[in-house]
């Protein structure tokens, strides 16, 4: 019987520590994800740009050799990432698949043109240079028409900048909220120990001696929290990578090591410093103001 209140007190202390750690972990997780987003905004826009298709429609009466020559010429250009030749028949099949209806049987002829689908390098996916490229291609005899979604690239370029700024602002805001939140949680924990801190002072312990275990504990909490946050981020990234394999390569490993180091450092610093300030507050407080 006599040990049960003891156990209860320990359990209570542990559960409050766990909720502190989880609180810090969630905040660090949000910050980490935002950092990943910012670091990858460029990559994400490149991904969209490089999958942007310029369709070069071939003249109806162009011969196969001419088309092959044209494709080779385009392939040789600096702006080309890759090209795919889509014949009349393939185009019709693709469209039939999309429509779910055999429109050739209905129309009795194939109205589609053969095309070379051109994907550009990200550096050339700028509205002005695309216009140039289109003009250059259209002047070729075998080319009938060059078609691309006109505003997409412009939108991407503008939005990447805007989104980057918004994300940056958002993460600064989040960082402030994080600091306030963690600070508050830790202050509550220390507040509940203010009488113990006072008793320690009354029996002649120096401030440094009283602070030490609190700060060690704060740093450990920060460490646990960042460990949880990093695990969560890794799990999320793993999920994203399954959907979009191109987005993270092996070359990003260093970036992630740096990022996770930063998350851990941030967790330790915020938690440690908050603890330090909270403890110092009760070390300096007048005995009569403690209540």
């Amino acid at each position, binding site marked *: 019987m*006599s040990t049960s*209140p*003891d156990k209860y007190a320990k359990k209570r202390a542990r559960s409050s520590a766990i909720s502190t750690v989880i609180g810090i972990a969630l905040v660090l997780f949000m910050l980490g994800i935002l950092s990943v987003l910012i670091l990858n905004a460029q990559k994400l826009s490149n991904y969209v740009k490089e999958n942007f298709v310029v369709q070069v429609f071939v003249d109806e009466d162009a011969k196969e050799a001419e088309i092959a020559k044209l494709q080779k010429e385009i392939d040789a250009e600096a702006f080309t990432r890759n090209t795919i030749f889509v014949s009349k028949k393939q185009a019709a099949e693709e469209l039939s698949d999309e429509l779910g209806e055999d429109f050739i049987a209905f129309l009795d002829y194939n109205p589609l043109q053969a095309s070379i689908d051109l994907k550009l390098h990200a550096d050339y996916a700028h509205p002005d240079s695309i216009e140039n490229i289109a003009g250059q291609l259209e002047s070729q005899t075998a080319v009938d028409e060059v078609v691309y979604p006109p505003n997409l690239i412009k939108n991407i370029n503008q939005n990447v900048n805007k989104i980057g700024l918004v994300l940056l602002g958002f993460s600064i805001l989040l960082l402030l909220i994080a600091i306030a939140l963690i600070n508050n949680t830790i202050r509550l924990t220390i507040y509940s120990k203010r009488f*113990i801190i006072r008793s320690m002072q*009354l*029996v*002649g312990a*120096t401030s440094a001696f*009283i602070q030490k275990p609190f700060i060690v504990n704060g740093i450990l909490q920060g460490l646990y929290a960042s460990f949880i946050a990093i695990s969560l981020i890794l799990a999320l990234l793993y999920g994203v990578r399954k959907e979009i394999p191109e987005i993270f390569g092996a070359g990003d490993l260093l970036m992630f090591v740096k990022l996770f180091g930063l998350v851990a450092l941030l967790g330790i610093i915020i938690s440690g410093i908050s603890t330090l300030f909270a403890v110092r507050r009760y070390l300096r407080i007048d005995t009569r103001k403690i209540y």
Partner: protein
Amino acid sequence: MPLDTIIELKNAFIYQDDHLVLSNVNIQINKGDFVYLIGKTGTGKSSILKTLYGALPLKDGEGMIGEFDLANLKRKQIPYLRRSLGIVFQDFELLSDRTVNDNLLFVLKATGWKNKSEMELRMQEVLDKVGMGNKGYKMPHELSGGEQQRVSVARALLNDPSVILADEPTGNLDPYTTEEILNLLFDISKNGRAVLMATHDYVHMKKFSSRIIRCIDNSVISEKAVSENV
């Protein structure tokens, strides 16, 4: 100042914030003295003790306890001042989050003890002295008020201080336990240490007669020994 004076207040003015509690206090206590500090509640008994252990600053007058000058006490010196004293608090001031043994261990570690077996020996010694030798594993809230007070006395004895300050140490105790604690404090004073004890317990003061310092009307009167008309 005579060589064996251990506590001295000269023309001291004792304030709580800006409120003057006691004026022109003159107290001198020698090694081996056992002194009662009495007075109605609110007359400044605790304030004198708090001034002596550095919880209230001495703004006016001179004060000396052991080797510490109270009028020029720096914040950094306060822990060291308190280590040289044994303080027994009315509300015990035990660390509620750890066992009796860990309470004592904290004080020993905080005051620079390193050797584990020496620490254990000392802890057992002081607990035995207050009759709590077999309850070191308990948490403070599992003990009765009297038992907690004994632990608090044991803690005050840990570093063998030359002065014991006790703020109503028997205020929460039954007469029997009170007598035990008083016996203990008297024994301590006989070993050449000074004991200053604030109390209301006039019954036991008659039984353990000794010098009295009385707080009345913002001032302090020192009397040689207890007389029958207390």
